Each structure stands twice: as C-alpha cells, then as structure tokens.
C-alpha cells in the first residue's frame, strides 16, 4: 500500500499549473484504494481491490469555466489535462456570477486517517467476515454483507496559491442475517478498523433476525412509527439533496426558502453539518480548497441556514462554508454530506410511541430498502 503524501501529491499539480494558459486554474486530485470483500450464504463471492485516481482541472478564461477530468498524475498528462480544460473554457459562455477560485486559507489537520487501517489486507477482511459467519452458523442462520477498506488522498492546488492535502481511511462492515422467518441488519462504520466489531455486528444482526417472525400485512393507514438510525439517515440524505444546499435555496425548492428564523419542523429537531466532528468521515477542505465549517441548519425546529460552495456563496453574498462537492455527483451549490441530528435517548422515543399507542397503531422501521451508508 502506497501513500504518496503531501509533497508527492502537490508538486506535480503545482508544476502543471505554472504552464496554464488561463486567468485562473485549479487541480484537484482524489486518489483512492478500495478493497471490498462481499459475502453471501456465509462465503466470500467477490473479493476486489482497485487503485484509482481522479484528477480534475478547472480553468477560467475571462469568466468562462472549463472542466476536464483524467486519471493520471504523470506531468505530461497533467499539462494536457489543463490544456483540455482551457479549451473547454474558451468554448463556454462567461459566467457573470463567477466568484473566483479560493484564496489560500489554513484548514484543520486531517483527523480521519489511520495507518494501520490503510495497511489492512485481504486476509484480515476475510477473518472479520469469518467471525460473523461463525456466529451466524451456530444459530442455523446465514449471513451476507460487505467489508470495505478505503485509503484516500485528496490534494488541491490553484493559481492563487491555495494548496491542501489530506489522507483519510474508511472501514465498513455489514451483515444481513437471514433466518427461516426474517432478516436482521447491522453495520459498523468508521475511519479505523478499530471501530469495527465483527462479533457485535453479528450479535445485533442475529438479534434482529430472530425477532423478525410472525410478520403481518399492515393495511394502509396512519401509524406512529419509530425510525431506527439507518432509516433516519436515509431520510436525512434525501433532505440534504432537496433542501440543504445553496442551489435548492436559489431554486426555491428548499423547505427553508423564505423561512429563515421560522419554525419549519417539530421543536425537537436540530440538524447541523460538521465535517470536523471526529465521529464523522471527512477531509477538512472541500474540492475548491475551502476549509470546511460547521453549519447550523435547523435548531429546535427553526430554519437557520444552508451550506454553500463559492458559487452559491456569491449568489447570496456570503462566504463559502466549504461544501463544494465532487461535480460528477453533485450539482453546483454545495452539498451537506456530514450531517448530525441532535439525539434524545432511544428509550425516550420508544416510550413516547408506547404512550401514543394507546390511541393509535405503531410501527418500528429499522431501515429503508437499499439504504446506503454514510459516505464522504
């Protein structure tokens, strides 16, 4: 496993930018090593590792922007990439609201990298899976799931002198346990393999599978419902896409549009985005090189704000919150990808439903179908 490091990542970018025939230019690199072991019926059926690189050049000619992507850090390839982005900029129309590239700014130190996790090998991933399947077999159940280890390095440099680099790691373990009557799901996710506990994942999934019996068909209707954490996370993910960015605010699609300072949800709901929280997975700067900031979105049910990249900050005459996101996946305007919802206690929520159950039906939703895990 090779970690290139700050100098090896940034030096070729800065060299390539010296030759840029543009008013402004920026290079962002996302280098990733992803090792995934997938298992089903207690056996690994797919075991893959891939080393890949994404390099994005963004150049500005006048106020017209061009973007080009490739996957090589070779100096000649980088120069060609910058030239391609310049050609694209010359073919694009001027952006009257162009905010300019990011100025140099210090970002927090990376806090989501673990060298031991970066070195995890295929045998260690198989061992974790075998601990799950051994526990499952004892109950006569079967297990399926995924064990993923990622090592990433992000680096950015631009012609205004901004530069940033951060390595990070990710460790993820999932089990779906199937009994004769139902299924149970559990997962662990963190930036270190130390945050994965295969025995506990197995125990939680087995417990849920054992409880999943005597299913009945619920008729359509209104129910009191408890959403477990993964189900809540899925709802928050869609909330992020549809209402927490500067673009959704500009379009008038955000549930907070025109309502800042007003009560927009129940008073127990508070939500914020904080990539610097040690419990989350993040690099401390965004893909424009802006340091990430904590942003209060909803406090006590009151609309407080949305996240911004440099473009949406320009639209709203404010500053970027460091939420520019990979443009291959997200539109301009920022993306809130490190959400935290304020918690009461789990038992308090359940008690509330039990109280309400006297006058209404109730249901517990453990997760929605095909719930992706939290990712950067």
């Amino acid at each position, binding site marked *: 496993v090779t970690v290139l490091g700050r100098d090896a990542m940034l030096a070729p970018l800065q060299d390539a930018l010296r030759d840029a025939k543009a008013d402004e230019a920026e290079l962002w690199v996302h280098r990733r090593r*992803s*090792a*995934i*072991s*997938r*298992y*089903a*019926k*207690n*056996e*690994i*059926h*797919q*075991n*893959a*590792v*891939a*080393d*890949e*690189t*994404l390099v994005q050049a963004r150049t500005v000619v006048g106020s017209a*922007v*061009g*973007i*080009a*992507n*490739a*996957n*090589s850090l070779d100096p000649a390839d980088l120069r060609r990439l910058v030239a*391609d*982005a310049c050609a*694209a*900029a010359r*073919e*694009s*129309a001027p952006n009257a609201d162009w905010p300019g590239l990011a100025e140099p700014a210090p970002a927090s130190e990376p806090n989501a990298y673990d060298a031991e996790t970066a070195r995890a*090998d*295929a*045998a260690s*991933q*198989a061992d974790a*899976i*075998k601990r799950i*399947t051994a526990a499952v077999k004892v109950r006569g159940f079967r297990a*399926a*799931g*995924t064990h*993923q280890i990622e090592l990433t390095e992000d680096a950015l440099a631009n012609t205004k002198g901004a530069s940033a680099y951060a390595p990070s790691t990710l460790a993820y373990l*999932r*089990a*779906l346990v*199937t009994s004769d009557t139902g299924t149970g*799901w559990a997962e662990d996710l963190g930036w270190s393999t130390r945050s994965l506990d295969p025995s506990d994942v197995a125990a939680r999934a087995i417990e849920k599978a054992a409880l999943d019996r005597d299913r009945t068909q619920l008729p359509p209707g209104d129910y009191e419902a408890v959403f477990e954490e993964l189900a809540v996370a899925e709802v928050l993910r869609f909330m992020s896409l549809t209402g927490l960015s500067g673009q959704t605010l500009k*379009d008038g699609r955000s549930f907070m549009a025109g309502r800042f300072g007003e009560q927009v949800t129940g008073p127990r709901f508070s939500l914020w985005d904080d990539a610097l929280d040690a419990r989350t997975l993040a690099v401390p700067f965004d893909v424009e090189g802006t340091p990430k900031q904590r942003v209060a979105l909803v406090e006590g049910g009151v609309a407080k704000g949305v996240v911004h990249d440099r473009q949406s900050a320009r639209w709203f005459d404010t500053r970027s919150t460091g939420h520019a996101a990979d443009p*291959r996946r997200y539109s301009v305007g920022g993306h809130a990808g490190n959400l935290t919802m304020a918690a009461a206690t789990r038992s308090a929520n359940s008690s509330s439903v039990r109280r309400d159950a006297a006058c209404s039906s109730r249901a517990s939703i453990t997760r929605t*179908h*095909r719930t992706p895990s939290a990712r950067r």
Partner: protein
Amino acid sequence: VPERDAQLADLVDLGARRGAAYADARRVEREFEAVSVRDGEVESVTRSSDRGIGFRVIHRGAWGFAATDRRGETSLRTVVDEAFARAEAAASTRTAPVALAAVAPQRGEYRTTLERDPFAVPVPERIALLRAADANLKGPHAVSRRGSVAAYRTRKHLVTSEGTDVQQEIVESGAGVSVTAVKAGAKPAQRYDGRLTRQAGWEFIEYLDLARRAARYRDDVEAMLDAPLAAERPTTLVFTPEFLALLVHESCGHPTEADRVLEYEVAFAGTTFMWPKDRGTLRYGSEHVSMTADATVPGGMGTFGWDDDGVPAMRTKLIDRGTFVGYLTSRETAAALGVPVAIGSARAEGWQHFPIVRMVNVSLDPGAQSYDALLQGVDDGLLLEAPASYSLDDKRQNFHFSTQSARVIRRGVLEGYARGVSFQSLTPAFWGRCDGVADDWELHGFLSCAKGEPLQLMRVGHGAAHARFRDVPIEVRA
C-alpha cells in the same frame, strides 16, 4: 480499435503459471464529452477520460480481482499479487469452488457502426442545437430550462487464459431536455427525459429532433399546470414505450438477474421473486407479454460483441407469452444454476470493477396491432407518457410509479390532461392486466443502472411499444 496488447497476455500467462484455474486481463479506456445549456446559456463543457487494467483469477476455487490505473512493470506485478491474495482470502471461506459454464474461446473485434463520430462534431454546432431546443422550451410559466448532449467512447481489450482475445470500441450518443413550469396556486409541472441514449453517432442526436421534443414538453407542462385531478378508480391505462422501458427494466430485468437468485446481492440490491423452481410455470403476465434479452440489437446500449466473461452476444427469452422462462447469467451464475450459457450478461462499468450480472437490452416484444388500434380499444382511460418518481421492493415484486404527464383517452381519442396519477401493483398482477401490445416498438437507453459494491453504473437498453392494461387501480394526489 487499439493495437493488440501483449501486456494483457503476459499478465494472463503469469496468472496461469502461478496456478490459477482461470485468469483474465481487461484493459479499458473511456472518454466522455458533454455540453449543457441552462436557460439559454452554456452551463458547462466537460471532458473526461480514464484508463486502467483489471485482472481476475480463480485460484483455490475462489475469485480474486485487482485493478490499477498505474503504469509500469511494478504496478502490474502488484496487481497479480493482489488478485491472488484476494482469491486466497476468499477461498478460506468457501465450501465449493467457483465453476464457469463452458464457452468456446473467442477472437475478433467489434465496433459501433457510426455515420458521424459525436466527438468530431464541433462544440459550436452542439451548442446551436441545444439553444434551438431551449428556445422551444420557453413557455409563459417555464422557470427552469435545460438541455445537454453527450458522447461516450469505450475501448476494451479482453484476454483470458482459455484463449479468448477480443477487442471492442463502443461509441454512444445521448441527449436530454427538461423544463419546469410554476404557476401560483398550481403544483409545479416538470417534463424531462434522461433516457435518450443509443449506441450510435451524432446521427442519433439529429434523429431525436430535440427542438420538436422541447416544444412538446413545453406544451405538456403548461397544460399540466391547469389540468384537473384524475378520478381515483380502476381504469384502463395505456403506456408509452418510454414509460414501459423503465417498467421492463425494474420489474423484469432486475428480478431475472441470476446473481440475485444466488443471494449475491441480498445485502445491497436485493433478491428476486422468480426462483429456479418457477421456470416454465410462474405466470408473470398475460399471453400478450413476452420479454427478450438481446445483446445483438443494433444501437442498443446493452449491445456488444462479447461480455466481460468473453461470451459472444446472444439473445434469449425471459418471458414467453406470460410465462417466466429464463435468466440473465454470467458464466459463473449459469454454472451455479446448472443451466447452459443462453446469454452473456457479465459486465463491469470500468476497468476498476469486477464484472457482475447486468442487463443487456431487455425488451417487451412488439405486438401486431397499430397504436391507433390499441387506442381505439379504450373507451375511458389514461395515457401515461413518462415516469416521474418511483420505488420498488427488494424482490422487484411490488412497485409504485407516478407520472410526469397523463393524457385523458375518451372513445379512443386523446383529450387533454389529468394530473396526480400514480399506481401501485404486484409485478405479476400488473403484467397480467396487459391486453394488448402495439407494433410501434422503439429502443430506449439507460446510462446509469445502479448495482453492485462498489456501485457500478451500467448502460442498458430497453425496447417497448405502446401497451394497454385493463382495470388498473390508480392513486391520485393533488
């Protein structure tokens, strides 16, 4: 087509010398260009490319896969070491070895037939086409207008330890237009189409006639703003080929993927309700419903010379006059199910991905009557033109779809619009209500069928004709 690649043969030879029961090496180079226009102005001109090698072995009865975009001897030796290490780790969990259904070694080249290379079309020409479409999207209540054209090129070279050595160059072209209209007191209306893609050159973009399509979308959204709510009751529904393409994808394509049967996707994409014991007996739909998987359809987004197992393009029946008869398979899943290779469906999004079972072109077979004759058979019903939001269960047995635009049918004639229409059904119950398929079959292409971990976005094709369904319960929401 790129030159023969001795490096791939060396990798495979090395794999065989180290004791692999099977090895393959796949080099993939991809290019992409897109131009988009928003509200009449150029929003972006984007170019991207990548290239790399994926190496796969069966060693000690298990798969191992490693991929890299780094060049040089050291990187390639590392890829071999890592593939073997992953196979050995997987083998430590297995009770039975991976087996591959037999396929004769393949040699040859495949390339998309093009009239005009979409990458060679000057950007100003692409922009002019999009601006012409944008002009037609303008309506009294349009608040957001977008249009885009894109070109894709994939070069692949596959070499296997069984003697297969095949090269392919696939070029695809796509376009889309969308418009959103807003009016005080009315629910916003939106028309869009993200499935206008084909394995073809710029001639397909011209065939689409984006300007005419844009005018139709503009008229649709303006009409939908003022349309009355539909009546909530069982009714006759006629679906456009565009709508049915998605229904076929979700309710037939996915549940016939053999890896779902083997539970390989149970913890992510899901399983199926179409099990091996059901083949030949499960009543999937009415006698009017036949569906075919076909990797040979000219222009299909799921068309190729060989899949990533090296299986040549084939066609096979999945649904025959309403009865479930076949699966989409890879060599591994065909062997596991004990069936011969009737269709090669092992495909990887890129060099960095392990090939898994994916749809090719999965289509509803055409009927014999004209679309007009189909409409004449509707006294009171709705034409659903394009899907909006939708959801499905993990077995693809139960689904819910809403629509962007619904037209009212009275005595065989289209009369105005209705809004708020959605429907929910079990898959066999829905297709069982089909009482006619027209002969106006057309091909649609999807760019991003999502499946697998890491997530792989796959191009797939779907053909369909207008079709009619009786007594479908619909839901109506304001």
